[in-house]
């Protein structure tokens, strides 16, 4: 037996309302546990006093004022009565033995289902498009980041090309510009498609290949 259970049963022990076996168990615990024995003694003394002096005490002159004073003292000793009250409520709620009939249980389940459905519907209406949009934007920004990173490398080669371009023949310059334009068009089309559908595998493949082609073209022509 533990202390909690023991202190619950002390009242019954003093009243003589315990079964023989419980009484035996409780006494065994009281012999081993000094705290519980002290509680039993205190309670026993109070009861004995009350029984001995029954009818001897006088009612206070102003019971209302006295009650208020007691209350003030108690409140001063417990600065967070709210927590205590909540705790006691929770203890009461969970400690209570919920014995529901089948219709009560059915009604309770139906109420829970209704509440959850309502919350879901309201949530979807309010934030329904949010996560999708966010994912889309995130993926689009991911693609743009990758393109931007590639673009930095491309810019470097572009600068080299611009330095060398003056040495090329007019025909070679025209060829280069024409081909670069074709690749840029492919990059742009792939990007547009990816903005529309960020999960489009083919557009992603084409975008990567087009960027690789562009880089290769720039590198190869920068040697000229």
């Amino acid at each position, binding site marked *: 037996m533990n202390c909690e259970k023991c202190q619950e049963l002390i009242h019954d022990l003093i009243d003589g309302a315990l079964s023989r076996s419980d009484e035996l168990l409780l006494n065994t615990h009281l012999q081993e546990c000094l705290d519980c024995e002290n509680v039993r003694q205190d309670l026993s003394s109070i009861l004995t006093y009350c029984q001995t002096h029954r009818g001897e005490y006088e009612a206070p002159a102003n019971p209302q004022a006295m009650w208020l004073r007691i209350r003030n003292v108690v409140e001063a000793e417990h600065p967070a009565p709210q927590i205590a009250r909540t705790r006691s409520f929770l203890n009461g709620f969970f400690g209570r033995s919920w014995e529901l009939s089948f219709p009560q249980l059915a009604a309770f389940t139906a109420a829970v289902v209704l509440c959850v459905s309502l919350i879901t519907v309201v949530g979807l209406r309010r934030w329904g498009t949010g996560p999708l949009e966010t994912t889309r934007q995130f993926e689009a920004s991911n693609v743009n980041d990758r393109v931007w990173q590639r673009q930095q490398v491309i810019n470097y080669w572009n600068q080299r090309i611009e330095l060398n371009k003056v*040495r*090329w*023949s007019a025909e*070679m310059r025209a*060829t*280069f510009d*024409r*081909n670069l334009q*074709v*690749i840029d068009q*492919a990059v742009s*089309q*792939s990007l547009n*498609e990816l903005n529309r559908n960020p999960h489009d*595998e*083919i*557009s992603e*493949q*084409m975008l990567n*290949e*087009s960027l690789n*082609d562009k880089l*290769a*073209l720039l590198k*190869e*022509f920068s*040697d*000229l």
Partner: protein
Amino acid sequence: MREIGFWKSPTPMKLSYLILRPLARAGLYALPAVMVISCLVPVQCQAQQKMSKRYPAGKNVRISLKNISGTIVVESWKKDEIRLSATIESPNAHVVPKQVDENLVVDVMNDNRGRGDVGDVNFKLQVPVDSSVDLETRRGNIYVSNLRSGSVRAHVSSEGDIELSNINASQVVAQNTIGNIFFDGEFAGGGTYEFKSTKGDITIRIPGNSAFRLVAASPAKKIALGDFWNNGFRTQDGRKYVGDVGDGRSSVSVTNFSGQITFLRK
């Protein structure tokens, strides 16, 4: 009403004045011009260089050719030697082929670094039938025919057609940006074949009993598999086809951004 016109009463003096004298004057101006042009034409002819060299070769030779601009023609012959012919447009251009063991290397880019624009250099290579060729040019057409067993790589950085005829190589790569690609040959078991263009048509002509795994992609949805199509092909809204033809022994990848992909049966 009396008509007054210049042609109504031409006199001999007026005729010579109107016709003969301008003709004579034109002749006088034209003669020097003709003389100048006739002098320039031989100079241009003299500027174009021609070279032809022969190199001994075994059965399995590898040729690496990197050109800047111009046409490259490669064909096989029965001799165990390589014949390299080149027409060089600019007198400034240098072409210095190097042979190391079984490899012949021609690098126009490297040979002419710092010389500025060297114009077109057109090559013709005659090689043993089992040769491997690695051909590159920044601009110009590439034609390869009658090769077997080795590998063929034809890369045009910008624009130029690629034509590979009667090729039975185990590895083929053909790539350009603008221009058509034509392959006529066979896919060897276990071989890999890659064809890629950004703007141009890709046509592949192979025997009907060819066995290969195909990955063909064209965002423009222009893929015609013809007799090689079967129900096993998976497609993504017509832009990409993946599947096996026969037992899929070789691997074929075809990518075309805006042109047509066509498979033909021989």
